[in-house]
């Protein structure tokens, strides 16, 4: 059991456990916390693959900004605990079996293609290389994306503004 394999197993188990807990929790805040655990575990997996900048940015952006937004909304809307309903018949007889079939299908497809999948780079990718790609080869999509985000922010502000008569 080499160290990378050990770390991968731990992080993968934590990520899956977080994702399952996200669905099974009754209170939305607990679900949000589970999602944060999933994000941090994913950041660890990125780090194992050598993408150090992406790992840090995953924590900063997803864990530190987007999930904070989720937590704020849940706190402000005062969303209470879920009411306990019976497991629906459709889920029990159709949903779970189909989900299991789907899982087996995906696992089979990945296992068959496993030998042909590319492997990650041997050395960690430095921020400099990433920056060169982003600002030289892909600068146009990059700027377009930032423009899109600006449009989204403006739209949100316009929609959330109260209509007062000017």
């Amino acid at each position, binding site marked *: 059991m080499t*160290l990378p394999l050990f770390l991968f197993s731990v992080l993968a188990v934590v990520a899956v456990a977080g994702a399952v807990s996200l669905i099974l929790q009754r*209170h939305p*805040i*607990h679900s949000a*916390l589970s999602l*944060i655990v999933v994000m941090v575990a994913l950041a660890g997996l990125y780090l194992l693959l050598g993408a*150090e*900048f992406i*790992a*840090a*940015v995953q*924590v*900063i952006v997803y*864990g*530190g*900004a987007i999930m*904070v937004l989720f*937590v*704020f909304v849940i*706190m*402000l809307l005062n969303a209470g605990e879920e009411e306990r309903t019976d497991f629906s018949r459709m889920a029990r007889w159709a949903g779970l079996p189909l989900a299991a079939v789907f899982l087996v299908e995906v696992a089979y497809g990945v296992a068959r293609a496993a030998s042909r999948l590319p492997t990650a780079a041997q050395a*960690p990718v*430095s*921020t*400099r290389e990433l920056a060169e790609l982003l600002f030289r080869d892909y600068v146009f999509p990059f700027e377009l994306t930032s423009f899109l985000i600006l449009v989204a922010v403006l739209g949100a502000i316009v929609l959330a503004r109260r209509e007062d008569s000017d």
Partner: protein
Amino acid sequence: MSEFASEHPILLVALPKIVVLLFLLLTSLAYLTWFERKVVAHIQARWGPYRVGPHGLLQPLADGLKFLFKEDVTPAGADKFVYFLAPFLSLSLAITSIAVIPFGPREFTMFGQHTRLAITDLNIGLLVLFAITSMSVYGVALAGWSSNSKYPLLGGLRSSAQMVSYELALTMSVVGVLLMAGTFNLTEIITAQGGFHWGFLPRWNFFAGPLPQVIGFCCFFTAAVAETNRAPFDLAEAESELVAGFHTEYASFKFAMFFMAEYASMITVSCLAAILFFGGWLSPVPPAAFFWARYIPTGAFALAGLALIAHGVRYLTIFGRVLLPTLGLILCGLAALLASPGINELAQGPFWFLIKVAIFLFIYVWVRGTLPRFRYDQLMAIGWKLLLPLAILNVVLTSLAIVWTGR
């Protein structure tokens, strides 16, 4: 297990370093509270803690014991898991950030492995620090919400909104330094600030390079004070406004954890300011005066020790007359230890680094004792309308300066 350790000796070496740094950090946390109370008291023309031990030096111990023995109340209807999680999260995140801070340049060997004076030396060290800062918003938000009470909820929401806003200004104000250094690695940022201008002015980021990062430093420090919820940006925990903000319903040790987390983030931010803008462990003394400059740490410790002995033998209480001269003798012993050749080289970096950190902590406490606090809307306006544009301006000016001087 032992073969695992021998295959990865770096883990074996990291453990003693972690233990030592943790011990030092927790002790300086405790004595930072003493320092703050004394300084704020002297600013307000009174003495501060004076009776618990000579000059109040045992006050942190007394406070710690008090926190441990107080009754631990949990509010009714609080979400138990999140209520217990919030202070743990705050404290563990605040303490973790000491792991990426480099204390000195020298390498030394331990267990046959070359290591530096830092727990880790990450290529993304600065980004990891910002990641930890962003995650620490959760401690505040979850604490406020899980207490099931209106003042903490409002305080928590206000605090977290403030922290999220000032994070932007904090990270943008550092981009100027990154442009000049070209790396996120904290050790390399420090070494890029080596050398002296005209023989006496250190080439730290605050003074030199393509553009002296004065605006960057001012934005950084202001944003950092706001980020750590300290005065004058502490409306969210101000007594007259919100009882005690997000930590109203926390008793004894959980409150102490929030307290410690706040001071630990103060220490982290001071270390960052010293590293990014003031040359970290680089000495301000130019190498021309090299011979005696090596003994400045020895001299400082010896002076402090002798002053403590001289003051201690004439102290009021017998306990003080024993404790203070003992402390003075320990300091003189350390001074003698620092004069020996091997340890002298090793201690140069950390000495200057800790002096700078102490200066920034003093400025933190000074600002707290002097300025009145901001109203919440003024606070948010400063973050978004003043600091963020200033930080962006700093980035633009630095980029222009770099292109101009062709570096």
